[in-house]
């Protein structure tokens, strides 16, 4: 099993001026195998992004288990979680979050090099398949939104992660561009043998993934 989430709960303390704590996740469980693609849908505030950040080790659950390739990450220290993100996780954000000071080539290679598994041949293939081979010396600010998201996808996949976590990867793109980007992402994920967990609002996009699950008020439907 690539990813196993069990009985996950997360509550945020009450905001100043309010009494009630926010129960964002309540006993969420899910699994994902290598090579499998899973869409996580849900309305705004349903806890989708929180679930993603917990799986990525960016935040800690109150209770429950998160196992990635069999290892429970719940009690890991920051250093170990950071190492896991470098080596096992590929993160794709809605706002792309490229590194503005590095050109496209450096952005694509960044995580792979950080993880110590940079493969120039594979990175070139990723760039070429994403249609970025003509833009390698450009900087993020010189690219369109679609191009930037393709770089973000390339950055995640060039590191050959076991698990790709994509949080609304097409949320900032028009429909046609979003379709093209999703096509490319799915192709590359499947070819690399990674598992994909994608958060999306769009039922249309969710339908293109192997499986889908719906989160509502912190519980899986």
């Amino acid at each position: 099993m690539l990813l196993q989430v069990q009985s996950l709960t997360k509550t945020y303390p009450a905001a100043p001026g309010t009494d009630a704590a926010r129960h964002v996740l309540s006993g969420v469980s899910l699994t994902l195998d290598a090579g499998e693609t899973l869409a996580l849908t849900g309305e705004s505030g349903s806890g989708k992004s929180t679930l993603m950040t917990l799986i990525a080790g960016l935040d800690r659950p109150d209770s429950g288990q998160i196992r990635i390739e069999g290892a429970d990450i719940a009690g890991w220290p920051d250093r170990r979680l950071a190492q896991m993100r470098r080596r096992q996780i590929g993160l794709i954000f809605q706002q792309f979050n490229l590194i503005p000071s590095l050109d496209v080539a450096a952005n694509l290679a960044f995580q792979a090099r950080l993880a110590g598994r940079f493969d120039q041949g594979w990175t070139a293939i990723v760039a070429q398949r994403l249609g970025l081979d003509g833009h390698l010396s450009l900087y993020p600010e010189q690219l369109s939104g679609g191009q930037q998201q393709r770089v973000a996808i390339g950055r995640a996949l060039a590191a050959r992660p076991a698990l790709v976590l994509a949080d609304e990867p097409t949320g900032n793109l028009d429909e046609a561009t979003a379709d093209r980007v999703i096509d490319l992402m799915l192709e590359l994920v499947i070819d690399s043998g990674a598992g994909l967990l994608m958060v999306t609002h769009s039922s249309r996009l969710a339908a293109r993934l192997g499986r889908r699950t719906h989160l509502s008020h912190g519980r899986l439907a």
Partner: protein
Amino acid sequence: MKRAAAHALWSHWRRHPGQALTLVLGLALATALWTGVQAINAEARASYARATAVLTQDAQTTLIARDGGTIPVATYVRLRRAGWQVAPVLEGTTRLAGRTVTLLGLDPLSGPVLPQTAPLGSGGIAPFIGPPGQLYAAPDTAAQLNGAVQPEIVVSDDLPPDHLIGDIALVARLLGRPDHLTRLVLAPAQATDLPPLDQIAPALIRADPAPGSDLAGLTDSFHLNLTAFAALAFAVGLFIVHSAIGLAFEQRRPMYRTLRALGLSARALTGLLALELLAVALMAGLLGVAMGYGIAAALLPDVAATLRGLYGAPARDSLGLRPGWIAAGLLMSLLGTVVAGGQALWRLHRLPILASAAPRAWRRASTKGLGWQGGLAGLLLLAAGLLTQTAAPPHLGSAFASLAAMMLGAALALPPLLAGLLALGTRLARGPVAQWFWADSQQQLPGLSLALMALLLALAANIGVSTMVGSFRTTFTGWLDQRLVADVYIDAGSPETAQAVLPALRQTATAILPRITTEARLNGHPGEVQLLSDDHSYRDHWPLLSPAAGVWEGLAEGRGALINEQLAYRSGLAPGDPVTLDGTALPILAIYSDYGNPRPQAIVGAATFAALFPDRAVQRYGLHMDPEDLPALRLDLEGRFGLRPDQIIDQASIKAASLRVFEQTFTVTAALNVLTLGVAGVAILTSLLTLASLRLPQIAPLWALGMTRARLGQLELLRAGVLALFTAILALPVGLALAWILLARVNVAAFGWRLPMVLFPGDWALLGGIAVLAALAAAAWPARRLATRPAADLLKVFASER
């Protein structure tokens, strides 16, 4: 509507109290250093004005003894009987109640020759001249002496500190000099049928009020130096203000657009922000003036000691509140705000409603602007170079203009140079983190440029001034060793005593070097001529600037004169040229350095001196002797001939006193140096703090990609250290150029002497280390905040995308 708009605009500061603090503190610091120095200058100038008003005879023509000694009372009586309108003055220093004071004895009955002995008017003349008499003194001097000395001391606000004025008979008694006068003040209107001076009193000469004796003129260069330093510190402070205002404007751009879209006119918006700046300027100005008062009060005692020691200028230790510098401080604060915030206001006024914030585009524009900035910097540096070469002899105005052009040019050149170095680092970097580090540093450069420019200026000023002071100290110490060749110096006080003590001196000393100095006109300038005996100690040590064969033989045989560097610069003289000494032309054999003496001076051999000034007799001697014999000689001279302790001085005491004055002179400079560096440190801290919040969206993805917060914090720290190190390296040539201009141009123009430049690489390394440490200290807080930042803060970066 405006009230609502103002509320919205100003709410920014409530949400960003650190930024508000930065702005006010930066402006207050800048104003404080400026105001502090202006307060010091104002206090010192007020002291000069008081001194000049009271000791007004300094601005009148006087009669003085040709030999520089005292005037017998009989000579004065002879002049008065012949119809000369002269007033006697007796001046001398003595110790009263453990304090060294200058006593000035006047004869108020000689009026109207001395019409302006102003402080004496209130109590009437009778208690002043009648027994037991009165002494007038400044409040602080009077407070220390009253009760400890007789007679009564009357407080006068018009007197400079450590000066007491009394009736001439009383002062003569206190000084123990009943039959001698120091000078005779000549009334402006004299009868036309007077017997000539050289007939009735041939031992006297007229001494016009020389420009060199004007305290304000003499100390102008000192105050100019302080003002230049204060201006530099003010400029460094303005970098903080500019940075804070610029960032606040950038952060509020979306709000401006919203307010404009909601119907607020550009004019009204600009007006509100101008009002905001005015409030900040006034608040910071008041704070700065208060801080400036503190700085001035702390530094004034050292400045006063310097002015008294180096220039003999009376200056008070205590600081008064003067409306002039308070108003000037507030005005500078306003002016600084206009300079620092004007650009932001202008940009806001022209901001289209639909313009996007586009911080990246702003950075790209900054990168494009680097080329222009580099070009402008090159032009300014070229202008600085040309300005140092154009004026010969050096002119103070052009020297300071070249300094300003060089400092501004260097500051402008810094960002392009740093960008080049960081680009090189990016190219050479191996590994993703190193590559990101260098590339990201390049991207941060526009936000940090102003703080780094401030650091460059502070470091360059430190290197420049410490090189100048170090060069001065090395040269001055060596020069003292050269000039003070005798082991003991005796001032017999009169030619008769000088003759009388000679047998006693011969018994103890291995060599006796007669010393005579007389007032004379040197190439038309009032100055002095000194006799120098033909002795091996002078030949071996005298600080000649251009030693040549046969100089000493020529001097002994009367074939020429030596002149000091001040006279050479003032009159454009070189060895071989003739110099006129009281109308007699002599060829110049060599030029010697004469640090600390503002007056022209010439040296001639014994035969020439006797020919030029036949009526001058020896009153002083330099002795070569075993210092261990000094106590016995002192006892003998004091016991048998009535010499005072201050008439017998050993070389070590003179050196110690001279070096003490020297060190005091630069205490203020050192303090201003440290304060300026401190302001630069604050500039870095504030820039990093304000950038820290803007940087979160750039840092968060790196954390998400697997870099720990601690590592990112360490890299932030490393970046500050690297940028400070690069800045320190680039500041070195700027500092050395600054030192060169100070030594070879400013000093020559201000004092008339040029100092050799001595390099102190150890000091540079230390300063570089301090700069890096200061930057690390400034970056430590923002870096620690990043390293310990809650994950929730970083997650907001991703969450806020929706």
